[in-house]
């Protein structure tokens, strides 16, 4: 049976067909749909873990216990998960272990453009790279075979255009491999220095064996065409290369990309006049090919930054003139992403933005999630965004440095609910332990919103849709030692309450927590509940002061001389109603 599938759906299908029984992940674009699709197979236990490190440790344990296991993460998630990965590399596995990293060249939804292929040689584990959905499915099966044959975890590397492109996949049946027996083996599974010293040479030997395999495995293949040009490529870049060169070149298509197939590369290079390396981001293949003493053309023409496409390759390597198109003497206004109409984060950023205009010492450290968009005008309510959790921890460092520099900066750190569970708790503990009088604003919108509404430890539901205990952020905050008088739990839709909390926080001299609780406006049940709730402008009372527009709500605009609220976008959150000094906005449909 044939089906059109995204790469992520196909990875899930591949795991199913290969007899995977345990899977874990933390959501992150472009990897999220892998676990969402795996969860639909009742034969596989699947969970959202609080972060990628936990997800990876869960599947490390499962693999040692004997299950074919899989974890999935976006590229930056692998930084979080790196710790267990580098040591499971020594221990090896029992049941097969596949670690999926979905990289994001072009940074469609990421804070950096790191190339995770470099993790494979760093951690000394095997790596495979599919280039379309069919390969996504097939390579998962190969990955399990490689994992179990060579006793290694396998890094399964995709990119946005592999994960989120759809193409036709031939489906197969599931092969039940069951869960292997577990036999206690401390020398293999306890990495004390004494055991690790024995293991490290074994890892090096394993790499040699893997290299032998790489030279003979079906994932690496040569497609002979014209031999004037020989192209070495992998992943989505293979598709672009084929698109541009067709039969006018020969290809070494690499699917098993660590260790790289040295003998195959040498043989291929000898048979062609010129070697091109076509790869996105870092010169991973190129650097290796050069260590083999082979002259090749790569990054001097192919850009390191941003994602590739056939057009870029054509211009870079064939020196083709740009294709003719059309031009208009009009500049398209920019359209950056923004907080949605009715977003419960908006009132909090509005309030802090207002405060920062009055008090110049307010500093706002942001984090990864929808609330990163608090940085956008007109709110401009952010100073830094680094990574998951840094909204709190970087606030501590900012506060300490300010003090050392005799500045009285007041730091407000922002995280979301899912991010708090991911890596905000440790920062909170640091703030209490090291007495940092920062304000930690936890924007609890009852979901993992940016990645498309995944459940998390605070939502009361598991990935499989089963009921789960609701882990209380407030209880954690109290347990860590934030004093009762330094905790405010507010409904962000109530601006007075939110502003009062922010004012109290500003004046506090101890670690302070504000939890803003209101579910994401895009959640289906919220949309249903608020379907008839609207704010409307009374044009007779409106003085066109545009105070409501300073909230940055996209439902409010100034057209034909009047401020109007787009009723199809408005969910009646009431922020504009609360900022209007002339009672010109009314709330309807309560």
């Amino acid at each position, binding site marked *: 049976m044939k089906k059109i599938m995204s790469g992520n759906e196909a990875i899930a299908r591949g795991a199913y067909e290969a007899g995977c029984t345990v899977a874990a992940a933390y959501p992150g*674009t472009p990897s*999220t749909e892998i676990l969402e699709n795996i969860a639909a197979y009742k034969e596989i236990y699947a969970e959202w873990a609080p972060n990628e490190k936990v997800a990876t440790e869960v599947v490390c344990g499962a693999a040692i216990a004997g299950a074919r296991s899989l974890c999935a993460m976006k590229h930056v998630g692998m930084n979080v998960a790196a710790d267990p990965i580098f040591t499971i590399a020594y221990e090896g596995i029992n049941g097969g272990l596949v670690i999926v990293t979905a990289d994001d060249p072009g940074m*469609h939804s990421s804070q950096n453009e790191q190339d995770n292929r470099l993790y494979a040689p760093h951690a000394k584990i095997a790596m495979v790279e599919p280039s379309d959905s069919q390969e996504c499915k097939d390579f998962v099966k190969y990955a399990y075979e490689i994992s179990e044959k060579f006793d290694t975890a396998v890094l399964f590397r995709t990119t946005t255009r592999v994960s989120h492109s*759809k*193409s036709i996949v031939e489906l197969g049946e599931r092969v039940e491999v069951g869960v292997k027996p577990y036999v206690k083996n401390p020398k293999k599974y306890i990495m004390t220095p004494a055991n690790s010293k024995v293991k490290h040479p074994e890892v090096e030997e394993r790499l040699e064996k893997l290299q032998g395999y790489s030279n003979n495995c079906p994932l690496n293949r040569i497609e002979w065409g014209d031999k004037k040009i020989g192209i070495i490529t992998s992943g989505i870049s293979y*598709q672009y290369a084929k698109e541009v060169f067709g039969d006018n070149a020969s290809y070494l298509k690499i699917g098993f990309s660590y260790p790289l197939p040295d003998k195959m590369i040498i043989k291929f290079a000898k048979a062609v006049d010129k070697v091109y390396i076509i790869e996105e981001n870092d010169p991973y293949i190129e650097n290796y090919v050069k260590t083999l003493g082979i002259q090749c053309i790569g990054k001097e023409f192919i850009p390191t930054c941003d994602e590739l496409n056939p057009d870029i390759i054509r211009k870079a390597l064939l020196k083709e003139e740009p294709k003719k*198109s059309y031009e*208009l003497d009009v500049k398209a206004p920019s359209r950056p992403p923004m907080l949605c109409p009715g977003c419960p984060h908006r009132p909090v950023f509005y309030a802090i933005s207002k405060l920062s205009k009055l008090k110049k010492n307010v500093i706002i450290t942001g984090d990864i999630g929808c609330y990163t968009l608090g940085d956008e*005008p007109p709110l401009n309510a952010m100073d830094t965004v680094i990574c998951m959790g840094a909204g709190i921890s970087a606030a501590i460092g900012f506060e300490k440095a300010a003090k050392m520099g005799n500045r009285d900066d007041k730091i407000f750190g922002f995280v979301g609910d899912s991010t708090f569970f991911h890596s905000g708790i440790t920062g909170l503990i640091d703030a209490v332990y090291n007495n940092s009088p920062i304000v930690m604003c936890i924007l609890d919108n009852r979901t993992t919103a*940016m990645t498309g509404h995944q459940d998390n430890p605070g939502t009361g539901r598991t990935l499989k849709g089963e009921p789960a205990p609701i882990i209380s952020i407030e209880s954690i905050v109290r347990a860590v030692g934030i004093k009762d008088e330094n905790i405010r739990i507010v409904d962000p839709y109530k601006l007075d309450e939110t502003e009062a909390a922010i004012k109290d926080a500003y004046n506090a001299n101890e670690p302070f927590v504000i939890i803003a609780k209101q579910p994401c406006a895009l959640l289906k049940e919220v949309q249903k509940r608020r379907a008839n709730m609207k704010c409307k402008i009374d044009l007779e009372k409106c003085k066109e002061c545009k105070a409501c527009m300073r909230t940055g709500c996209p439902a409010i605009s100034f057209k034909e001389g009047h401020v109007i609220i787009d009723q199809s976008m408005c969910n009646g959150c009431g922020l504009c109603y609360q900022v209007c000094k002339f009672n010109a906005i009314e709330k309807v449909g309560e």
Partner: protein
Amino acid sequence: MVKSILFVGVGGQGIILASKILTQGLIKFGYDVKMSEVHGMAQRGGSVTTQVRYGEKVYSPLIGDGEADVIVAFEKIEAVRYLKYLKEGGSLVVNDYEIYSLPILIGAEQYPENIIEKLQESVPKTKALKAAEIAEGLGNIKAQNVVMLGSLIKALGLENMDWDSVIKENVPEKFYSLNVKALKAGIGTWDI
């Protein structure tokens, strides 16, 4: 011969569903197809694109500058933004519809005037339609994506295929007849 179609618009306009219906149809009619979409941050009211390529054998899911046979723009300024992807002689199907971005809302930038006229002057094969109005006339503005799809299907010369069954398989039953009507209305926009 591989055909390349670029869908452009604003997050929330139903672009992904429209390109999904097209993709499913093309597979049903025997083509090799690749479709690429973007999720995450890009969907929060930002400019979004999906790309569909079909033919006997398709390699790249992505379209480069001057390579799109058709651009389907769900919003006017998005047509302007991505116009450089249209190949010479290609068709532009554009929704005569405005969505203000935040910089426009707060007055930092201006929404340009007479865009449709300028596009028509520049691109000979431009089809401008009021998909939102047509969909509203059919009872639900949300069907504007399928009106756009209908107009695209006509531009591709694929209007005689069995799209009704493709819609049946890809939208909830209660929206089936609305979407069939929307598709027909979209195909019909070329007769006006």
